[in-house]
């Protein structure tokens, strides 16, 4: 459940931000097809009417244009309606039912109107029917003629809708596929960036150097160091952007890391850790606290010739877990540099996982220390 959280989050985000841009292009396409379709239909009808019927051409033209104009307006109204009610998302049988119903709702008044004009004669099926039913000399009754006109329009509107939904469906399918591949790429990139920011070569090579030194000095500690180094490396390589683990597990990673660092720094690095039991079950993004601790050593204690005390403390506040990492740091003029790639990455991850519910602040209000304050909701 939780693993999929950032994906759906991203999905809705891209969805919300997309409509302003996309419809303009699809709208354009719609108007072109709409005008082209109705335009050619009317033109054919006018030509056919003038050729076949003994009626002044101007009258014919006006009548066809009025009828098809109404059809044009009706189809546009229909489009607005089906778009608002997302017919495209309906299962096929339901959609088909609605398409036919809509065809008749529009077709009935238009067919009635058509029967009142000269154009009706154009669609009068009498001659054709008489071929099959020779007894139909008197022609069709008026009510049947009305019905046929309505039928005619209804079929036209069903065809219109089928073309419309095929076009829209195709477009949505394509953009969904595109979005999917774009999202997969973005996620990959984010994961790669995370890995790069976490795999700190300076730390690993120095740690290996320490291990080599310990092999001859203190074999037992060397064994221990190799185990811890392997754990740290494994977590670094395996951890994913969206994985959440209990604070207690994250603290194991942090302790392995701190143990290795104190082998390197010896008495320059002193640590104080306070994690109450009730806080240790809250789930936090994997390797995030570790990043903060690494920063505290890299930019703080590692920069001080005499070293210092690194303090990690956790507490439950209302419905959130608050973790603080405090470290002494050299007094420098520009503090702006301290917002490195690690911190930026950590913030990105929090936003993806918790939206606005989590926060990460770096407090450098005191000149000689820095406090990273992480706040994670208990029930995200």
């Amino acid at each position, binding site marked *: 459940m939780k693993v999929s959280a950032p994906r759906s989050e991203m999905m809705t985000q891209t969805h919300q931000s997309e409509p302003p841009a996309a419809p303009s292009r699809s709208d354009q396409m719609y108007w072109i097809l709409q005008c082209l379709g109705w335009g050619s239909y009317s033109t054919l009808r006018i030509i056919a009417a003038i050729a076949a019927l003994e009626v002044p051409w101007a009258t014919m033209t006006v009548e066809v244009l009025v009828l098809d104009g109404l059809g044009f307006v009706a189809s546009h109204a229909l489009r607005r309606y089906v778009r608002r009610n997302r017919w495209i998302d309906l299962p096929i049988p339901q959609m088909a039912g609605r398409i036919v119903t809509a065809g008749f709702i529009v077709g009935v008044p238009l067919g009635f109107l058509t029967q009142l004009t000269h154009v009706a004669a154009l669609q009068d099926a009498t001659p054709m029917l008489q071929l099959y039913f020779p007894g139909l000399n008197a022609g069709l009754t008026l009510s049947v003629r009305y019905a046929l006109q309505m039928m005619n329009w209804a079929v036209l509107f069903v065809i219109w809708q089928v073309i419309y939904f095929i076009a829209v469906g195709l477009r949505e399918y394509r953009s969904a596929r595109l979005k999917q591949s774009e999202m997969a790429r973005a996620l990959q990139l984010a994961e790669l960036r995370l890995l790069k920011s976490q795999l700190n*070569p*300076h730390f690993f*090579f*120095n740690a*290996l*150097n*320490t291990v*080599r*030194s*310990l092999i*001859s*000095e203190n074999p037992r500690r060397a064994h221990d160091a190799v185990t811890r180094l392997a754990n740290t490396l494994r977590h670094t390589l395996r951890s994913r952007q969206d994985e959440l683990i209990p604070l207690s597990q994250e603290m194991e990673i942090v302790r392995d890391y701190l143990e290795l660092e104190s*082998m*390197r*720094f*010896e008495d*320059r690095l002193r640590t104080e850790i306070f994690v109450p039991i009730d806080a240790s079950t809250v789930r936090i993004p994997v390797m995030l606290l570790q990043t903060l601790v690494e920063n505290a050593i890299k930019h703080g204690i*590692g*920069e*001080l*010739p005499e*070293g210092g005390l690194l303090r990690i403390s956790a507490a439950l506040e209302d419905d959130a877990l608050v973790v603080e990492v405090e470290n002494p740091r*050299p007094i420098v003029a520009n503090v702006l540099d301290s917002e490195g790639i690690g911190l930026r990455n950590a913030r990105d991850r929090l936003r993806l996982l918790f939206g606005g519910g989590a926060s990460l602040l770096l407090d450098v209000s005191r000149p000689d220390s820095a406090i990273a304050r992480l706040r994670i909701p208990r029930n995200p």
Partner: protein
Amino acid sequence: MKALIIDDEPPARRELRRLLADFSWLEVVGEAGNIEQASALVESLLPDLLFLDIQMPGGSGFDLLSRLDHVPDVIFTTAHDEHAVRAFEVDALDYLLKPIDPARLAGSLARLKSARVHDTEPVRNVLDQIFVRDGEHCWFVPLQEVSLISSEGNYSRLSWGTRRPLLGRGLAALEQRLDPERFFRANRQQIINLKFIEHVEMGVNGRLHVQLKEGPEVEISRRQARLFKSKTSV
């Protein structure tokens, strides 16, 4: 040959000491964990060689070199910053990657030893080469190749071939450490390298004008003129 190990991590220093035990001609005379300690040790122990880490608290290995008067031979030891060493304009520096490969260490030391055989022991109270860091660039500048040193406030600008690196110390401080046989204070603003003089002219005002090879004309101040004449027997 005396060597100094400079690294902020104690295990790394001990490991290097163990590796260097195989080279009997090399004596490790001291260790330092930051550049403050290191610069004091360099001035007092006058080592011939530095094993120098780059990333250290309180200042980098480069910072150390630029504050030293006498820069001994340097082998950088680094976990990951070899690109920083490679960025040097002059290929005078060697580097080793930590954990150090014993074979590579042996190679570096062999190169160093063979280069030393041809070198005469330098006179200790004058500067012969200087480490300059100017913006992005770092150089080891052999002072005999510098034609002119000009004062720029509290700094000094070297004329070294076509390069003009700025040195982080004043002309007066520098003058005391220069070889008097080679360098001469021409006036308040400039020190010239006597080996770079092309010709000397007497100006209309009675002053001496020195034309430097590939360089500008420098006027000798009235106060220094007599000394200049005796030095160069003009």
